[in-house]
């Protein structure tokens, strides 16, 4: 059977109450034990000694002897001794106790505390002992509490009251605490609600105390920031997609129109061929946008394999070498130091390198050399492309990496400003990042792949198959 769920605020309140109560109880118990033992124990011993002495007198000398001893003791005492000898129906025969008010027990008691009144008018609480005198009556002996004991009794009563009060305070404290927790959570909840309704600028209030609520608010704000930046990026993406597609589409349209108005067969065919080219270029932009989105969200590593960075660069160089050569530039492949194998997606890494080389060919044109490099940096493995062109000023690097981000100097050239974004998406897919740095002269674009991707020397499935062979 499942217990019903107890609300958290209630649990917190109950806990707080319990804690207040426990600490107070411990304090009260301590006070009680200390004072009780200190004061009451001697009195108790005294009362018991009196009772036993009187009892001895009675058993040796009978009731008369007892009465005279009692009056002797009473006249000699000054500190609140009380003795009463009663008959069977509780009538006083001798002694100084007037009213044993509630003290008419059916049987003898060893020691108890009860209020009594004496003949001389003194009254108050006393420790008393009740003995049975055969069948003939009762002997009550005891001692009034001294001042200190009275005070202590008063303290004990106050302690009981304090206990009651501490219970009440516990409840109040718990309610306040619960209210505080509820209000703090409700504040955050309200912000989350409003954010959910579209007020993206809103953030949960933080008081800088770095308590759990503050940290929770901080985390929620972090999430809001991320959502906000994603939304902003998405909006910018759709805006710029619409904007950047406008020009190729209008070019396409113009070319179709011209082809329609051309009557000459040959010219018309040439016009249609350019239409086709435009359509292909448009298609390529759309494919790239789709691929970027896909790689950014892809988490599967099904297609990953172990790649030797050196061989990988040689292959890319082999594909691009002639084109770079034709463009009047030189291609060099530089491998620095020992290289770690990369666990990665060969096709996508090649596509990323291809984009970097394309960029280097377009923008690094005047410098004359393109370098493909691989080097081990810290934990990770880096591969990249360097050119000797004008480079990108540091303050513009973020813009160069943004989707459709094109630096002004590049506006006039072909391309949709997606190349570096795709490279970045591929880097993210590998858990790495794309770093751009201006090196005098030129731009150095580097895919930094993290150690976990590069450094694992044995692929997992090889380890597994090794294990199976052994077993």
């Amino acid at each position: 059977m499942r217990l019903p769920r107890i609300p958290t605020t209630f649990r917190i309140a109950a806990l707080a109450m319990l804690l207040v109560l426990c600490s107070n109880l411990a304090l009260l118990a301590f006070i009680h034990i200390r004072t009780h033992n200190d004061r009451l124990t001697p009195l108790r011993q005294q009362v018991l000694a009196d009772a036993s002495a009187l009892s001895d007198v009675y058993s040796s000398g009978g009731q008369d002897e007892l009465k005279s001893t009692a009056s002797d003791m009473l006249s000699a005492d000054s500190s609140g001794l009380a003795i009463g000898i009663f008959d069977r129906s509780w009538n006083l025969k001798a002694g100084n106790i007037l009213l044993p008010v509630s003290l008419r027990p059916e049987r003898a008691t060893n020691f108890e505390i009860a209020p009594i009144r004496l003949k001389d008018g003194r009254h108050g609480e006393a420790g008393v002992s009740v003995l049975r005198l055969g069948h003939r009556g009762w002997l009550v002996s005891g001692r009034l509490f001294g001042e200190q004991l009275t005070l202590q009794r008063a303290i004990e009563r106050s302690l009981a009251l304090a206990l009651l009060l501490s219970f009440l305070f516990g409840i109040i404290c718990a309610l306040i605490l619960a209210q505080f927790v509820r209000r703090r959570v409700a504040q955050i909840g309200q912000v989350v609600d409003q954010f959910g309704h579209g007020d993206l600028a809103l953030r949960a209030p933080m008081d800088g105390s770095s308590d759990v609520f503050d940290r929770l608010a901080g985390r929620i704000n972090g999430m809001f920031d991320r959502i906000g930046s994603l939304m902003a990026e998405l909006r910018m993406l759709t805006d710029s997609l619409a904007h950047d597609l406008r020009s190729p589409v209008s070019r396409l349209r113009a070319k179709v129109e011209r082809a329609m108005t051309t009557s000459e067969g040959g010219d018309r065919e040439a016009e249609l061929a350019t239409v086709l080219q435009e359509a292909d270029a448009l298609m390529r932009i759309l494919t790239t946008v789709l691929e970027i989105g896909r790689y950014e969200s892809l988490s599967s590593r099904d297609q990953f394999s172990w790649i030797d960075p050196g061989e990988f660069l040689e292959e890319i160089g082999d594909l691009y070498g002639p084109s770079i050569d034709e463009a009047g530039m030189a291609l060099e492949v530089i491998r620095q130091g020992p290289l770690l194998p990369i666990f990665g997606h060969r096709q996508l890494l090649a596509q990323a390198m291809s984009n970097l080389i394309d960029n280097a060919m377009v923008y690094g044109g005047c410098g004359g050399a393109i370098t493909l490099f691989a080097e081990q940096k810290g934990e990770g493995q880096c591969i990249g492309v360097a050119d000797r062109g004008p480079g990108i000023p540091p303050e513009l690097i973020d813009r160069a990496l943004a989707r459709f981000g094109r630096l002004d100097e590049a506006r006039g050239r072909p391309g949709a400003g997606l190349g570096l974004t795709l490279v970045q998406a591929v880097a993210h897919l590998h858990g790495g990042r794309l770093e751009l740095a201006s090196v005098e002269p030129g731009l150095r674009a580097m895919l930094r792949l993290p150690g976990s991707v590069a450094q694992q020397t044995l692929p997992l499935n090889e380890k597994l198959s090794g294990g199976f062979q052994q077993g």
Partner: protein
Amino acid sequence: MAWKILIVEDDAEAAAYMARGLIEEGHVVDIANNGRDGLFHASSGLFDLIILDRMMPEMEGIATLRALRAAGTMTPVLILSALGTVDERITGLEAGADDYLVKPFAFGELVARLSALMRRQRDDGSAAETRILVGDLEIDCLKRIVRRAGQTIDLQPREYKLLEFLARNADRVVTRTMLIERVWDYHFDPGTNVVDVHISRLRRKIDAGFAVPLLSTVRGAGYRLSADA
């Protein structure tokens, strides 16, 4: 030569467009408009080639292909799909497709690829040729030696691979993407003219100084290695 081609495609317009083009080329075409019908027709084993869409009602393309291969039908399959990322292509090829073409496509590209598929199918039957002749060009595939009119031509390893692929598809159009895929094993579009440059270098080596050029450019489609270009 006429082939019997099965088009499995739920978009009736696209299927009709392909069928019209292929019939004009002289082939026989059947159309199935969902995966289950496609599987049923294809299982007959009567077709030379199957063009398979991926996202279809009744039965998805990859599932159809797997069922077909599991049943032992080895008819060459070309997947024609709008799902075009590298991973999607590899999924298709791993499921047993012989080639993968992304929509939208140029009709010339489709024909070139089907043609290459048919050629491979034929080659698989017999032992692979160890000596290829295209006009007066002679390729010794074992020693990797190329001669033209008895004169040895010195080629880089990649140039040799490029030439061998063109020669194995002699007289047929080979597209740029086919070359990127088969010669370099890259499944993305480099976008720039990288393949054209390789081709022109190869052309300089095998055609320069000879009266009859063997390697020709087919406008808007690709290249062709042929004795009577």
